């Protein structure tokens, strides 16, 4: 397994390089540059800025310079947030996104999985219909609708919780964004869990387990749950990467200092280095989480083994 892990990590390098190369050149092809805004800068000032960020060099030169800096762990200065390097922005913002995201994922798992299981074993009962239609609503209502509603009701009208702000990640400030962020995940996971549970419950070894006279709860917890978790686990890889790198909507509505906004703002501002930094970070995270998911597979399903 160790050599498999190493092999996968090595394979990640060319993948990342392709991602970096594509985004580097795509970003430059996009119309408009980092210094195009409401006001056109006088030519000499634009020239000074281009020189300061090495944009006056030929594109291949800039690309090599970027790769060279990247190897040394330098993501370059942000064009927009001038007092910070991109690596500073990411390392300052990521803890907030991570904290929020992990709580949301945890909530989604702790609520979504049991809901899905209940719906599966009580298939076509009232409980099933209630869970599934609520889940459908949860998926259908986007978080840019849920989040302001939560802030309005609990922050403004009831005054129980802050309507926004981070405050170092205090639970009062975390609660509403975690709810807003996890509702959709709960719904997804519950639906996924239900479908896969139903499938597993229909398989032969479950019939065997039941035939042995095991109690229904034992059948579900000991024999059905683990294999039924597989689709959820494979979903979790990209989902965690997506959630812990922040949501621009949730961050802006609740004023959370995460890195989600950098993906969107970086692109809109043509902040080349910031876009590249977030792409590299996100890409590496996805590759890593996918690897972890694959390794988890072998623990959940004895049929999967990574041998050399």
């Amino acid at each position, binding site marked *: 397994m160790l050599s498999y892990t190493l092999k996968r990590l090595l394979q990640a390098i060319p993948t990342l390089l392709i991602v970096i190369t594509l985004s580097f050149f795509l970003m430059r092809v996009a119309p408009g540059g980092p210094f195009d*805004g409401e*006001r056109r*800068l006088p030519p000499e000032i634009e020239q000074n800025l281009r020189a300061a960020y090495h944009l006056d060099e030929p594109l291949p030169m800039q690309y090599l310079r970027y790769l060279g800096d990247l190897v040394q762990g330098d993501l370059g200065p942000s064009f927009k947030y001038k007092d910070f390097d991109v690596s500073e922005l990411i390392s300052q913002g990521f803890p907030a996104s991570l904290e929020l995201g992990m709580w949301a994922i945890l909530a989604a798992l702790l609520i979504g999985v049991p809901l899905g299981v209940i719906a599966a074993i009580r298939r076509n009962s009232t409980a099933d219909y209630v869970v599934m239609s609520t889940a459908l609503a949860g998926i259908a209502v986007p978080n840019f609708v849920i989040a302001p509603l939560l802030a*309005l009701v609990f922050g403004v009208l009831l005054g129980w919780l802050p309507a926004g702000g981070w405050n170092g990640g205090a639970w009062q400030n975390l609660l509403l964004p975690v709810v807003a962020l996890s509702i959709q995940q709960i719904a997804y996971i519950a639906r996924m869990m239900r479908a896969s549970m139903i499938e597993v419950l229909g398989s032969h070894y479950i019939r065997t387990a039941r035939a042995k006279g095991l109690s229904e709860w034992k059948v579900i917890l000991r024999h059905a749950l683990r294999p039924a978790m597989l689709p959820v686990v494979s979903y979790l890889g990209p989902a965690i990467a997506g959630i812990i790198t922040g949501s621009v909507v949730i961050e802006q509505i609740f004023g959370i200092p995460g890195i989600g906004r950098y993906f969107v703002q970086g692109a809109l501002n043509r902040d080349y280095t910031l876009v590249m930094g977030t792409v590299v970070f996100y890409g590496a995270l996805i590759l890593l989480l996918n690897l972890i998911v694959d390794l988890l597979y072998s623990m959940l399903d004895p049929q999967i083994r990574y041998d050399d």
Partner: protein
Amino acid sequence: MARLYSPSHTPVLPGRFALKRLAGSLLLAGGIVASQGIMADTLKLAIMGEPASLDPQQISGTWENDVVGDLFEGLVTEAADGERIPGAAESWQISDDGKTYTFTLREDGKWSDGEPVTAEDFVYALKRIMTPENASDYAYILYPIKNAKAINSGEAEPDTLGVRAVDDHTLEITLERPTPYFLDQLSHYTAYPLPKHVVEKYGKDWTDPGKMVSNGAFELSEWQPQTRIVALKNPEFHDANEVALDEVIYYPIEERNSALKRFRAGEIDIAREFPTQQYGWLKDNLPDATHVAPYLGIYYYVLNSRDGHATADPRVREALNLSIRRNIITDKILGTGEVPAYSFVPTGVNHYDIQEMAFKDMSMDERMQKARSLMEDAGYGPDNPLELTLRYNTSEDHKKVAIAAAAMWKPLGVKVNLLNAEVAVHYEDMRQGKFDVGRAGWIGDYNDAQNFLNLLESGVPNNYGAYSNKALDDDMQKAANTLDMKDREALMQDAERKALDDYAVLPIYYYVSRNLVNPRLSGWKNNIEDTHRSRWVSFSE
């Protein structure tokens, strides 16, 4: 600093307001008794975005101004109502030719670390901003200073800049030409002094909390990007006795609806903008907190004067202007107090009475009739309808205005293709002239008509429509060299008149500023530049 009760927690929501206020004042009373009057006044200010930098030479936006303007003070500064008053300089003299300014700095001017603010700090700052390697995007504001542009273009050495420290407290600035608005510009953040001893010591990191020192009413204490910036009262500030607040916390909140919610929840005392759609609700529910005031800016459509565009024909430009019902756009479509514009320079600019388009007082029927005949003269009609491309940058309000404009031009047989794009793409396309009509806005950098009329001079980078009028250029050139304010005004009025008679652009409305201010705050005054320094603000009991 003991914080017993933060007055800013009082919510402004009707209903809950009275109850919390009562609770607040009880707490307050207890606090005063317990601590013999020691209490911290904290102002919580929502600014409209994360500052690009806290280095006054590395910013070009408006929200940075809210923070940096509290931390630093220029030679000249702004009173609560925006009037220019002496700042770091206590007095100055202007030479007869209007080109040499001699400033006497205050004896008691100090940086927040106790070091004196000297003329050398200004010389250092002004040379630094013009140094090409510093790549300051807003350096051009100070181009009136002798040799500034040449230095910033790399054609002259920074030492040749027209600034000189005569002695520790005397600063001399020489200009390229007399510039009547120069004193105004000196209150701009590009002209703030920098603590030479600190910038040289820390380099780029000098703006970090703990390193930065400043000469304004407040000093930086904390900066968490995307979260908050905290500034504490600067005890070394020359007017510290008159500064009521102990602390200002700036929250960057891009989402206007979030700013409003947090204001209603009492988490914020001032929101520097509110969502336009909520104006009706705010007027009904929070009338005392809602501030709408004229703002030094014009929202207009650029008409492309380049060859090959129908809008190069003045008759078409006039017809397009005639048929826009500006009051419908301001009252029915926007409805936030915007004022219909028939001039290019907004009302309220210093030393300037605006000129207006000739048709302003004509009835709409007369205007449409005239517009139709102009279009006919220009060769357009039912058989040969005019097709126009109208570009705007993506935003709900811009879209609404564009759709309304297209509908208003329809009776002339004009077919409009609406194109929208994100800001960077929009302005790139405008620059390249890929449009017939294009949305633009201009907020004055300084309170002078020249800052607006300059946009219509030939070859100016922000003249997106490439409008060119020799007579206007001449007027502006003459005005630039005219010392007498009345003569200068007349020349600029003549220039504006020429542009309006030629229908060079299509002005739509004058901007308004929109602030939410806790009614318990005093010292806040609406002003045309929407500049507000926290040193003037206090909580009234």
